[in-house]
C-alpha cells in the first residue's frame, strides 16, 4: 500500500490509506491545517487517526529544530487504529521541519518542501551545513520543491495585503495543494474560513486566495501526474464527529452528570496536557457545569472532595505532577468513601520531564501512590473517543462504590483525534445514585438514627446522605472510623476490618454486573502469544497484532481498560497462553503486576521516549519474542 504513493512511475489512482505529516515552524499554523485536513477527511467519510506533536512549552526561536511543530494524520477507506507509523507524505515548510522529521520517513516516501524557506540563513538555523535539497540527503524520496511562500505572496498581492500578513497564509496554500492531491472537496474549508475570519476580511480573503492558489498549483503545475483518491471507509451507519481525547473526556463527564442527575463540579489547575478539559468544560455553562480554576492541585482535589460531600459529580483533572500533589486528598477520599473522579492525563516524566510528550508511567502511582492501605479503582481509556466511555464508567464506579476513581489517559489520547459515532443519548444507561434520605438504623433503644458507614452487602458501598436533609446530620473524617456508625475508632480489630473492607469493596467491582469487564479481547484459537496492553497503546498493539497475523502468526490480544480491580478472566488468560508479552510505554509497570498475579514469566516490551509505539516497530519486537 505505502508503495503506491512513491516512485516516479505512474501510481494507482485509488489508495487504501495515506499518512500525511504537516511540519513547519511553531508559528506556521501546522496544527491548524492538520485539523482542517482531518475534518475534511472525516466529513468525506474516511476513517482516521491523528497525532499532533508540538515543541516544548515556550516558543523556540523561529527556524530551529526545537521550534518545529507537526501534525500527522492517517486517513483510510478501511479501519484505522493508529495515526500511522511513518508518513507517506511529509510537507516541510522549512529546513528545520525537514530535519526534524526526515528520520521518520521510509525510502520511497514523498516530500513536499517549501523551497522559499531554504536560504542559507534558514539552513544554518536548522543546523544544516549543506543544502539537503542538493547534497543527496533526499535521494531515497520523491521530492517536490514548491515555492510556497512566493506563490502565496503572488496570489494575495492583488488584495493589497501587507507582505508579513500575506506570508501567514502560506499554510493554506499547502493545504490547498494537499487537498488537490487527495481529491478533497474544498467547499467546507471555504465555509470554515469565511466563518472563522468573518471579522477580519483581509485575513479571510488572503487565506481563501492562498487555498485556491495551492489547489490550482496542483492542478496546473506539471509536477504531479494526477491526484489520488481515498474512498470513504465503510464505517457502521450513523452520525459521526471527529473528536480528541480531552474533548471526549469532558463530554463523557457531562454525560455522566446528566445520566446520574448529579450536578457536575470540575476543579482543576491548568497543566499540559490536561488543561483543555478545563477549557472545554468552562464553556459548557448551559449544561450547569461548575468549573473552578483552583489555586493548585491540592486545592482542586480538596474542592472536589467538598463538592462530593455536598452531592456533586465531583471531578478533578491533572497530569502527573498534579497527581503527586493530590495523593493526600485522595487518601482522605478513600477513607471518607466519597465518589470522585480523578483524571490523570499522563505525560513524560519524571518531574517536569517533557510536558508535551506522551507516556504511561503513572500507573503504579495511580495504584499505590498514597500512604497507608488506600485502594481505589483505576481505569484507562484506549482511544480518543473511548475517553467518553471511560468517563462514564469511572463516574458509574465512583458513585456505585462511593470511592474515588483514577482515570488514566495520556498526551497521545488527549490531542489525538478519531471519528466517533454519536450514540442516542436516550439509550445511554442511567447512573443509579441511590442516596439515603432517611434514617437507616435503629438504636438499641428503638430510636431511628443515621449511620453513614452502613454498607450495601453486595457492593460494600456505604450509605450516602447529603447535607440539607433533616435528621441525617453526620460528621466524617480521616481518622479511622467504626464500621457502621462512622464514629472515630482506634480499636485494632475495627481497623483491621476496615482496611480489609476497603480493599474488598474495590475487589467486588470485579464481579459487579453493572460494571464493565475492563478487558478488550481479540483471542485466536491456538495462539502462540498473548499480547497484553492497557490504555492508549490499544491502537498500536492492534495494528501490530494485525501485521503479525498477516504474516501468519497466531497471536491473541488482551487489552485492559481497568487496572484495579484487574479484570476477572485475566489471570486465566495469562496462564493458558504459551507466551505472554506486555507492551507498555514505561519500564514495565503493568508487567510486574501481571507477574505477581499470575506467576507467569510475562515478558515486557517497553518504550519510554515520549512517543507512542508505532505498529511496525511493535510488530518487529513482538516477532522477536515469538522467535525466542
Amino acid at each position, binding site marked *: 500500500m505505502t508503495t503506491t504513493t512513491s516512485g516516479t512511475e505512474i501510481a494507482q489512482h485509488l489508495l487504501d490509506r495515506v499518512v500525511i505529516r504537516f511540519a513547519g515552524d511553531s508559528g506556521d499554523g501546522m496544527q491548524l491545517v492538520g485539523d482542517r485536513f482531518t475534518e475534511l477527511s472525516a466529513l468525506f467519510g474516511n476513517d482516521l487517526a491523528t497525532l499532533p506533536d508540538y515543541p516544548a512549552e515556550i516558543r523556540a526561536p523561529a527556524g530551529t529544530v526545537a521550534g518545529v511543530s507537526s501534525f500527522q494524520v492517517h486517513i483510510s477507506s478501511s479501519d484505522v487504529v493508529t495515526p500511522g507509523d511513518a508518513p507517506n507524505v511529509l510537507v516541510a515548510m522549512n529546513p528545520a521541519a525537514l530535519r526534524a522529521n526526515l528520520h521518520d520517513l521510509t525510502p520511497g516516501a514523498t516530500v513536499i518542501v517549501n523551497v522559499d524557506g531554504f536560504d542559507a540563513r534558514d539552513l544554518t538555523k536548522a543546523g544544516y551545513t549543506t543544502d539537503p535539497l542538493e547534497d543527496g540527503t533526499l535521494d531515497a524520496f520523491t521530492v517536490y520543491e514548491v515555492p510556497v511562500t512566493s506563490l502565496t505572496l503572488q496570489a494575495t498581492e492583488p488584495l493589497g495585503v501587507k507582505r508579513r500578513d500575506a506570508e501567514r497564509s502560506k499554510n493554506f496554500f499547502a493545504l490547498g495543494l494537499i487537498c488537490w492531491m487527495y481529491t478533497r472537496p474544498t467547499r*467546507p474549508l471555504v465555509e470554515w474560513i469565511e466563518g472563522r475570519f468573518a471579522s477580519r476580511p483581509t485575513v479571510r480573503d488572503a487565506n481563501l486566495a492562498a487555498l485556491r492558489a495551492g489547489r490550482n498549483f496542483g492542478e496546473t503545475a506539471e509536477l504531479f501526474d494526477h491526484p489520488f483518491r481515498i474512498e470513504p471507509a465503510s464505517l457502521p451507519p450513523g452520525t459521526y464527529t471527529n473528536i480528541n481525547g480531552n474533548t471526549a473526556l469532558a463530554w463523557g463527564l457531562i454525560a455522566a452528570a446528566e445520566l446520574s442527575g448529579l450536578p457536575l463540579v470540575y476543579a482543576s489547575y491548568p497543566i499540559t496536557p490536561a488543561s483543555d478539559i478545563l477549557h472545554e468544560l468552562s464553556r459548557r455553562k*448551559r449544561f450547569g457545569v*461548575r468549573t473552578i480554576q483552583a489555586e493548585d492541585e491540592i*486545592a482542586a482535589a*480538596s474542592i472536589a472532595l467538598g463538592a462530593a*460531600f455536598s*452531592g456533586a459529580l465531583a471531578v478533578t483533572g491533572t497530569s502527573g505532577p498534579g497527581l503527586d500533589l493530590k495523593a493526600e486528598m485522595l*487518601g482522605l477520599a478513600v477513607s471518607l468513601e466519597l465518589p470522585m473522579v480523578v483524571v490523570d492525563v499522563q505525560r513524560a516524566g519524571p518531574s517536569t520531564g517533557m510536558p508535551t510528550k506522551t507516556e504511561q508511567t503513572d500507573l503504579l502511582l495511580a495504584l499505590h501512590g498514597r500512604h497507608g492501605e488506600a485502594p481505589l479503582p483505576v481505569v484507562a481509556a484506549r482511544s480518543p473517543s473511548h475517553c467518553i466511555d471511560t468517563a462514564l464508567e469511572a463516574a458509574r464506579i465512583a458513585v456505585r462504590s462511593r470511592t474515588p476513581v483514577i482515570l488514566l489517559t495520556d498526551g497521545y489520547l488527549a490531542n489525538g483525534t478519531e471519528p466517533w459515532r454519536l450514540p442516542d443519548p436516550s439509550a445511554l444507561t442511567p447512573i443509579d445514585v441511590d*442516596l439515603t434520605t432517611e434514617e437507616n438504623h435503629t438504636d438499641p433503644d428503638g430510636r431511628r438514627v443515621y449511620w453513614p458507614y452502613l454498607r450495601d452487602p453486595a457492593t460494600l458501598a456505604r450509605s450516602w446522605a447529603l447535607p440539607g436533609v433533616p435528621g441525617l446530620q453526620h*460528621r466524617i473524617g480521616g481518622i479511622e472510623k467504626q464500621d457502621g456508625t462512622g464514629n472515630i475508632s482506634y480499636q485494632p480489630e475495627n481497623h483491621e476490618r476496615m482496611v480489609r473492607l476497603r480493599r474488598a469493596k474495590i475487589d467486588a467491582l470485579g464481579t459487579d454486573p453493572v460494571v464493565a469487564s475492563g478487558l478488550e479481547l481479540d483471542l485466536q484459537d491456538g495462539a502462540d502469544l498473548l499480547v497484553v496492553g492497557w490504555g492508549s497503546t490499544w491502537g498500536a498493539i492492534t495494528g501490530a497484532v494485525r501485521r503479525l497475523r498477516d504474516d501468519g502468526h497466531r497471536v491473541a490480544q488482551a487489552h485492559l481498560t481497568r487496572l484495579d480491580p484487574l479484570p476477572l478472566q485475566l489471570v486465566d488468560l495469562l496462564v493458558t497462553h504459551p507466551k505472554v508479552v506486555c507492551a507498555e510505554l514505561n519500564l514495565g509497570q503493568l508487567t510486574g503486576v501481571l507477574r505477581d498475579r499470575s506467576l507467569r514469566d510475562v515478558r515486557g516490551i517497553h518504550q519510554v521516549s515520549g512517543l507512542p509505539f508505532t505498529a511496525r516497530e511493535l510488530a518487529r519486537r513482538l516477532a522477536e519474542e515469538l522467535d525466542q
Partner: protein
Amino acid sequence: MTDVRGVRGVTPVELTRKDFMSDQELRWCPGCGDYGILAALQLMLPELDIPPHEMVFVSGIGCAARLPYYMNTYGVHSIHGRAPAVATGVALTRPDLSVWVIGGDGDMLSIGGNHLLHALRRNVDLTILMLNNQIYGLTKGQYSPTSGVGKVTKSTPFGSVDHPFNPVSVALGAEATFVARTHDTDRNHMQEIFRRAHDHHGAAFVEVYQNCNVFNDGAFDDLLRRDARPDMLIPLRHGEPVRFGAEGQRGVALNEFAELVVGDVDDLGEDRLLIHDEHRPDATLAFALSRLAADPHTPTPIGVFRDVRRPVYEDEVSTQIEAEVERRGRGTLEELFRSGATWTVD
C-alpha cells in the same frame, strides 16, 4: 436533573443550644480554651434560625479542628490545612448551605495559608474561625506561625527566630471583606462576633485568641487577665471614636504617616480620635488598626476591623450559568454531541 438535595426541612419553631450538640464526648484537655469557644458558638447558633441540617462545618487537623465532631450538623474533618478549599467545594456546589470553617493557627496559617488566602480573595461565602493559641497543640507543642520571636518550644529549644504573622494583617493583605478578632475569655463578645461573621455575605475571617493551657498556657494573659482587660483591649465599634481604658481615657489617633498611635485622650485631643468605620472600601484603616499591636502584650484591638460587600464567588458562578441557560437554553446531550462538525454514514 432530579433534585438530589433531599427534602428541605421546615425551620423548627424554636432552636436551642442542644440542637447543635452532637452525641460525641468532648476530647480536649480539661481547661482548654476550645471549650468556651464551642459553647459560645452553640449558644449563638440558635439565633440564626438556620436548622442544623443546613449547616456544614469543615475543618482540617489540630485540636481546634476537632470542633465539627461536637456539632450536630453536617461536618467534614478533613486533612491538615485544606479546610478552606474543601469548604469552597461545598459552597460552590451548595450555595444554599451555611458553611463554616474551623481550624488552628498552624492549620490555617502554616500548611493551609494559601488556601485561606484564596478563599478570602475569591470571597467565598464561608464563616472562618481561626482558633489562635500560638502553638501546635495536637502535635504536642511546637511553635506556630503566630508564636513570638524567642518562643521556646519543642522544636525551638533555643527560642524561635521566625517573625510571626499578624493574622488580621494577612487577611487584609489578601483582600478579605470581613475581618474580626475575639477571644475565649468573653463569651458575649465571641457570640456577637460569630454572629456578625455569619451574617456577612462572603468570606468572613475571625481570629479567636485561645488559651492552650497545656502547651502555651497564658499566652494572652497580658491582655486577658481580668484586671488587664480595660487597659489592654481596644474595642472597635463602628462609627465611634476608638478609645479604651476603664474610664475611656485612652484613645487612638492618626499621625501624618497614615499610622495609628495610642495615647491618652487628654494628650491626643478628643476630636482627633479616630472614628472607626468598618465599611471603608479601602482596607487601609483596618490594616492600620491591625498594626497597633505587634503581639498580644500591648493594647490590642478586638472586634470587627472590616466589613464590606463584594460579589460572592459562588453567586457569580451561578449567575453566569443561569444567564447562559437563560440566553441559550439548557443544553442537551444531543446538542453537545453535535457541537462539532458531523457527518453521516448510511
